[in-house]
């Protein structure tokens, strides 16, 4: 059997590109069906979509078909090119984000030395797309939504990155495979049966990361940018049809990819205890393990989304600058001291 590494460069790259698209779209679809359609319905004591396909499982395809048929409306005073390009900038950031997430020992898109640093850099580009959408729409609600989104994303990018630094110090690498292996082959005071998932030692980092991630995804309680009772839908107000669909896919795909990154950083990625970490079996069960962990982490995201009311703008900024960033900094110092001590 040929492995991926033996193929020519263009062959393995083509396979990885196709795999990346499949990973983003399948993950987004799974999360929308499981969480947005079924989990929220369960929380609200209703069934959710039931008519299209078994248990409504084809509802998403019906929605996509509906959006694709709609008219692509441009506001008369909109800046046409900026308005049209904005969803693609957001979606590009999502698709570039997924390339760092490994699915198994050989099932990776890129095995870059930069890993998580690359992911943080790429995710910051989506802010440009949101500002383009808010400004290009020529609508005051859109502009305010875009500005709110930017203020929020800038504020919460810092704790997000600082929370990651603790993991990087402990793993000794920014490479995502290296971080998985550091957890798989780690030991807890000489006891290595379950490895050393960083959820134990970096629990503070995990909490800061999850809160900052919720804000980066602009999910409630951090949904000031799209606050529907104040701003219609913020920077997405003027979008319809396929471009709205692109924003929608971007939102849930980014939720999935960030959940995957959290799973790699704190839950051990594709590793499950009991199988040797260099076993080839992980190339098959690794992606499934990852999907399970992604569904779990994104469950936390959507649980919070459907449970908590919205923050006020000043509360939101205070939480980031006065609580999360100092906690993350203390976590970095403590991790550094303990890393040298042990």
């Amino acid at each position, binding site marked *: 059997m040929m492995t991926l590494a033996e193929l020519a460069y263009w062959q393995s790259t083509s396979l990885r590109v196709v795999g990346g698209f499949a990973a983003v779209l399948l993950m987004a679809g799974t999360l929308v069906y499981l969480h947005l359609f079924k989990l929220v319905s369960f929380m609200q004591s209703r069934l959710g979509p039931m008519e299209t396909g078994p248990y409504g499982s084809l509802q998403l395809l019906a929605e996509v078909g509906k959006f694709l048929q709609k008219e692509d409306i441009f506001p008369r005073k909109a800046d046409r090119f*900026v308005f049209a390009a904005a969803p693609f900038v957001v979606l590009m950031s999502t698709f570039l984000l997924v390339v760092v997430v490994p699915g198994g020992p050989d099932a990776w898109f890129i095995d870059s*030395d930069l890993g998580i640093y690359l992911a943080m850099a790429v995710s*910051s580009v989506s802010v*440009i797309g949101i500002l383009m959408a808010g*400004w290009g729409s020529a609508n005051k609600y859109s*502009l305010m939504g875009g500005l709110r989104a930017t203020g929020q994303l800038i504020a919460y990018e810092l704790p997000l990155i600082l929370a990651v630094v603790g993991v990087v110090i402990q793993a000794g690498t920014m490479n995502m495979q290296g971080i998985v292996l550091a957890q798989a082959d780690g030991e807890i005071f000489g006891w290595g049966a379950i490895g050393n998932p960083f959820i134990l030692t970096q629990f503070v980092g995990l909490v800061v990361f999850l809160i900052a991630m919720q804000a980066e995804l602009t999910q409630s309680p951090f949904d000031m940018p799209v606050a529907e009772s104040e701003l219609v839908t913020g920077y997405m107000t003027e979008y319809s049809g396929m471009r709205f669909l692109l924003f929608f896919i971007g939102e849930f795909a980014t939720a999935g990819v960030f959940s995957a990154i959290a799973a790699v950083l704190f839950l051990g990625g594709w590793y499950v205890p009991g199988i040797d970490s260099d076993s080839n079996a992980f190339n098959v069960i690794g992606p499934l393990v990852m999907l399970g962990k992604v569904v779990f982490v994104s469950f936390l995201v959507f649980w919070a989304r459907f449970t908590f009311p919205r923050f006020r703008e000043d509360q939101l900024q205070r939480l980031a600058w006065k609580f999360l960033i100092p906690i993350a900094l203390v976590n970095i110092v403590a991790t550094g001291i303990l890393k040298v001590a042990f």
Partner: protein
Amino acid sequence: MSALLAAVSADSDLFVAQNVFFGIIALLMIGSALKVVTTSNVVHAALWLVLVLGGAAAQFILLGSEFVAVTQVLVYIGAVVVLFLFGVMLTRASMGDDETVAGEKRVMAAVVAGLLLAVMSVALIDTFSDDRVVIDEPQLVGTVADSIFSQYIVPFEAVSVLLLAALIGSIVVARKD
């Protein structure tokens, strides 16, 4: 990208693909840079600037300096341009062309830019024209970290203190009370 670099440099000393793409990206950067200064819409200028800075990041990747490239994206596109756009949109978010942007200072700016280009070109060509960049393999993060924290530790710390001073200074200037 790193695998491609390794594959190309393994079997030849010529970086044909790199040179071709360097030219293409450089042309795109020059075109975008001209649009930055000629467009009469401030937001458009900032968006063209994104292309220039993204092109610079791409050139760094072609040179195998992945860390610098990603830092370029994170700092310049993810932070500096975003703050530009944020400030412009908060203050003067007019949709159409803004004629006040294209003032009579343009001639002076062009002269200064031309002089700067001439001085930089002469200095760089004079210094580096005989050097050849040999890219054996992409630069690892560990290598960058080792050189920063051993060979260049004093400049690094000096720059850090300078940035901290600038940060405190900007807060002092901005505070009204």
